[in-house]
């Protein structure tokens, strides 16, 4: 729907009158629209907060896992360092045993120790690849360790020769200093790892605290969001309830007002007509009974009294009809406007068969609307055209449709008396007449009734005219897709 601004009521005939139904929606959009966007914004914010908290938790947990794996890594390095030392000691102890006893069996631990040493050294190299200090230490450790192992190997080779007997314990212990050096190097390697372990332990504890914290933050954010949502929901519910109660009160008041209006109309239609009947009836009685005793001008006076009474009765009837139409709810259906107009035209001809008037009705005009009300509208529109072309010898009245303004526009044109566009603004108000009663009879409610009916259908009505050149009334029924909807309804009924 296109939002036109609020404004002019039934008047403004020169420009098409603005639409009331859409303006109400426009007003609602202006005042209440932001409320509709609010939940979206709030939802977005809540989602952002939850995603943020999740991301924080996720990252902290990742970091915790990483810290834990570094700690694990350090433990592994320490284990490797110890295994390296054990390998070295095994090799040395095995070699020493052989040198002292010449027992070949002692060579097994020696060989095993060497293998262990080589294996764990290689592993240490790989495991500490990220730590340049330890790499340098390993590099510095490698030549003396190899030298020591080579020395052991050479001593064992010498002990193999038959000429060589048991080696003196002093010779075996001669490399003690070298061994102590190697041990201290290994201790330094391990110390470094222990230092790292302490560091990584601390880092992990920090991570644990951070992860804990982010969990609490997440919990707090969730609870806060939930609280906000609950509060907002409760406010929304209470507002809605309030609105519902207000609506209910309004409905009751409207029902009361309608009932009152109903009673009022009933009383008007019944009680106001009774005195009018008396005025008319007794005036006629007087005229009849006095007969010749009254002169013609006096009869004329009585005739005027009667005419006034009858006119007032007509006014009352028209007003009641207008008021009833305003309170009608539409019974929508597909309406054959052409057929309806044809019936109305036939009625007009019956009332005055002597008239020479061509009434041209475009065939097959269909619209979505209330048939009863549209009949009343066409009765008034064609009736007006019929009335105001009375002075023409050969009048022409048209009822047709045209495309315009994004929809179907219905046109009722006559070549009758027309009117001055200066007064077009008054055309659709109740009791507004642009012609004297002497020229054309009428209560001035007809076009007001038509306007009401058109507005009830969500349409517009406007007029163009010039004095002595006829009048053209144009109206729409509902939105531009009214005709399409009517067609669709038609097809649905057919298929």
């Amino acid at each position: 729907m296109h939002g036109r601004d609020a404004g002019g009521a039934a008047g403004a005939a020169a420009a098409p009158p603005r639409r009331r139904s859409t303006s109400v929606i426009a007003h609602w959009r202006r005042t209440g629209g932001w409320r509709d966007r609010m939940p979206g914004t709030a939802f977005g914010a809540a989602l952002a907060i939850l995603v943020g908290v999740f991301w924080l938790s996720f990252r902290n947990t990742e970091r915790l896992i990483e810290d834990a794996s570094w700690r694990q890594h350090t433990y592994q390095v320490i284990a490797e360092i110890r295994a390296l030392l054990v390998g070295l000691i095994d090799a040395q102890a095995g070699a020493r045993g052989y040198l002292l006893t010449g027992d070949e069996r002692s060579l097994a631990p020696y060989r095993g120790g060497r293998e262990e040493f080589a294996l764990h050294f290689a592993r240490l190299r790989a495991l500490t690849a990220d730590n340049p200090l330890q790499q340098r230490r390993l590099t510095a450790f490698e030549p003396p360790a190899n030298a020591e192992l080579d020395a052991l190997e050479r001593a064992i080779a010498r002990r193999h020769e038959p000429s060589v007997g048991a080696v003196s314990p002093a010779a075996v212990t001669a490399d003690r200093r070298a061994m102590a050096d190697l041990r201290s190097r290994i201790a330094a390697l391990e110390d470094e790892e222990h230092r790292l372990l302490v560091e990584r332990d601390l880092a992990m504890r920090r991570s644990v605290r951070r992860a804990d914290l982010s969990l609490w933050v997440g919990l707090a954010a969730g609870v806060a969001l939930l609280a906000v949502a609950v509060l907002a929901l409760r406010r929304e519910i209470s507002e809605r309830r309030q609105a519902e109660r207000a609506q209910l009160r309004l409905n009751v008041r409207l029902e009361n007002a309608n009932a009152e209006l109903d009673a009022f109309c009933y009383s008007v239609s019944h009680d106001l007509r009774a005195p009018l009947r008396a005025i008319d009836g007794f005036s006629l009685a007087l005229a009849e009974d006095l007969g010749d005793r009254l002169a013609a001008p006096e009869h004329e006076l009585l005739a005027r009294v009667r005419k006034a009474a009858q006119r007032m009765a007509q006014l009352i009837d028209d007003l009641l009809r207008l008021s009833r139409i305003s309170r009608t709810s539409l019974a929508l259906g597909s309406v054959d406007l052409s057929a309806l107009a044809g019936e109305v035209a036939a009625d007009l001809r019956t009332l005055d068969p002597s008239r020479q008037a061509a009434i041209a009705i475009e065939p097959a005009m269909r619209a979505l609307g209330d048939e009863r009300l549209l009949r009343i509208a066409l009765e008034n529109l064609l009736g007006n055209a019929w009335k105001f072309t009375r002075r023409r010898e050969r009048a022409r009245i048209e009822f047709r449709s045209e495309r315009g303004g994004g929809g179907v526009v219905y046109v009722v044109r006559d070549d009758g008396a027309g009117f001055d566009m200066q007064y077009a603004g008054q055309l659709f108000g109740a009791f507004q007449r642009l012609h004297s009663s002497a020229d054309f009879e009428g209560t001035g409610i007809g076009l007001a009734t038509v306007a009401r009916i058109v507005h009830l259908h969500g349409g517009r009505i406007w007029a163009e005219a010039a004095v002595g050149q006829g009048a053209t009334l144009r109206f729409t029924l509902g939105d531009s897709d009214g005709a399409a909807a009517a067609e669709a309804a038609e097809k649905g009924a057919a298929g």
Partner: protein
Amino acid sequence: MSVDAILLVEDNPDDELLTLRALARNHIANQVAVARDGAEAIAYLEGAGGAALPALVLLDLKLPKLSGLEVLERIRAEPRTRRLPVVILTSSKEDRDLVAAYDLGVNSFVRKPVDFAEFVEAVRQLGLYWLVLNESAPA
């Protein structure tokens, strides 16, 4: 030969006078009994004062004590009067009154025109139809 009466149920003296005048102008010779509220109408129909059943009841809707519709309801509920021709002659033509009146079994519903000449014509046609043309059920 005695002609059955017409019962006119009408509380407004002006309307009563106008209706009597319209009947007279149409040379309707039936005696006219006037009841000025619903209770009086029922009393008349129940035979108070030895009155016989009228040939036709002309009934207004807005009446003191008992409304026209209530009178109609009682006429139709009473075996003695249930086939009596009743014509509602009233000012308004509210849809709900029309529906209620026909539901209660009224024979005809006529709205009194303001133009007295039209009213005289309406009364002429009513008299012609209900008192001459139409054959009522035997009493």
